[in-house]
């Protein structure tokens, strides 16, 4: 490993390296802990939580597209209380930052969850206002600035100082509007992008492959959209950014960081390769070393626009 300082700061929290795993793709860490030590990760965004347990959507919940996948999991999760009782202690064993990801049906639900999670002790709360796979809440909050701001305020009010990161939807005309609204409402960081709504049809059965008809697109296919949106948001808002969407190698992560991200999350790439976050971290370090940087954080915002 080249001699580059890998640690980065995100909303005041120091990550040992800039590579986090994306919410919903890593469960609560148990499964991938059978492959490697989770302390190798910069942080873990846990599977999205709701106030009450949810079964999620009917299967099939996944479809493959060119260099992408569609998912319609629909926030299957055991509820915030079960997370705190059963999963958080497990995650706490590792020397990595734990980021809880929450979705609510009302702004109040977000508040209640923040209250519980901050009391239980998580390092950060990622407020998901962009899940395309559930009807209530979710996407609606992420596409309207005033609602996004309302949710953010409520979350901040109940987070008792735990940093609040708002997860933004790419399914909008102008993502900077939402970013500015969320910033104005007091968010500590922004994470983007969540999945882009898409559809695949089985031409033989004439049925959508997903039982929910549509789902969220992620994976390499969306990387250029993620880079563009991170770049736009980093110019419009002063908040630190957790960039994600299609990262599967160091170069992808470097693109997001140069565009303005302080750290990156790896999601879909895990399915092809459980070790992807470590490969991304090493690739990023190699790029920083090749550029003669002493710290990988020096990549952040380094793009020189024409």
């Amino acid at each position, binding site marked *: 490993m080249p001699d580059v300082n890998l640690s980065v700061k995100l909303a005041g929290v120091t990550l040992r390296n800039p590579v986090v795993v994306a919410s919903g793709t890593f469960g609560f860490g148990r499964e991938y802990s059978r492959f490697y030590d989770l302390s190798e990760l910069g942080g873990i965004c846990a599977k999205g939580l709701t106030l009450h347990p949810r079964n999620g959507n009917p299967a099939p919940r996944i479809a493959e597209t060119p260099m992408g996948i569609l*998912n319609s999991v629909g926030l299957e999760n055991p509820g915030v209380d079960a997370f705190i009782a059963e999963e958080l202690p497990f995650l706490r064993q590792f020397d990595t930052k734990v980021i809880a990801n929450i979705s609510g049906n009302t702004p109040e639900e977000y508040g209640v969850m923040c209250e519980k999670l901050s009391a239980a002790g998580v390092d950060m709360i990622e407020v998901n206002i962009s899940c395309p796979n559930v009807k209530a809440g979710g996407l609606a909050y992420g596409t309207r600035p005033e609602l996004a701001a309302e949710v953010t305020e409520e979350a901040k009010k109940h987070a008792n100082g735990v940093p609040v990161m708002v997860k933004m939807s790419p399914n909008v005309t102008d993502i900077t509007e939402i970013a500015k609204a969320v910033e104005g409402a007091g968010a500590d960081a922004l994470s983007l992008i969540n999945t882009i709504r898409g559809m695949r049809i089985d031409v033989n059965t004439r049925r959508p492959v997903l039982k929910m008809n549509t789902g969220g697109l992620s994976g390499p296919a969306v990387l250029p959209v993620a880079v563009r949106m991170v770049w736009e948001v980093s110019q419009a808002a002063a908040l630190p950014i957790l960039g994600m969407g299609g990262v599967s190698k160091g170069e992808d992560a470097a693109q997001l960081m140069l565009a303005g991200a302080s750290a990156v999350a790896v999601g879909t790439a895990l*399915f*092809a390769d*459980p070790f992807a976050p470590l490969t991304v971290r090493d690739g990023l370090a190699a790029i920083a070393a090749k550029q003669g940087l002493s710290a990988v954080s020096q990549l952040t915002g380094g793009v020189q626009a024409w």
Partner: protein
Amino acid sequence: MKVERKCKIVEMDRLDAVTFWMVLEVGKMVEQDGLRGGQFLHIKCGEGQLLRRPISVAYAGWDEPEDLATLIFEVRGEGTEWLSRRRVGDELDVIGPLGNGFNISQPGRYLLVGGGIGIPPLMQYGECLEWPRTAVLGFRTRDKAFPVITSRFQDHCERTCICTDDGTLGRHGFVDAQVREILEQDSGYTNILACGPKPMLRSVAKVANEFGVPCQVSMEERMGCGVGACLVCATPMKDGTVRHVCKDGPVFNAEEVDWDA
């Protein structure tokens, strides 16, 4: 421990135009990690496919220099097509062992029920199970009843009944009718292990339930991670919860499954 490793293909036979028999060197996955029939491997099928493909293990055995796992698969789409073009000596990127396999800790008399490409996951049970057993094997047509597969059951089971959907071999009709007949004639069966398409599993589960014989079914669902992290392979249970085929399965107790979902 689960591992991701490069596995060399040491045998590759074509059973017919779309069906392949492949043997992989899997390191010490059998000896150390307990890989066995009915579990599955999650296989990367070329750079063009983002998702791995789950393929069941038909046989798993200790061997030198590496343990061996036998897979039997049918070409369905691009992933399995890619897999079918591999040659002896090529390496595959494999994650395993995954899933649970059938529970055979109970002594008794077993009835193995397989349909089509659902038969391979039962092969090791047909051959090595320590309890007496009968096999019911269903095929679409005579051509699909490859002797290299059926003979394994015929050589090691008390009885092997073959059914074909079109009547070109063995009994004409679906396996559930055969299962019903067997259970009607003989009340000594204590366990049913079934693998095949979902409608078949549902029918077999129904018959098993009628006769009060515990039944395990191996289910399929589209997968992402294959290890239990992404929650895409959900299958609903009667008690209103969901379980995940890759981690909690692929084998479930039939009476726990919500067959109406």
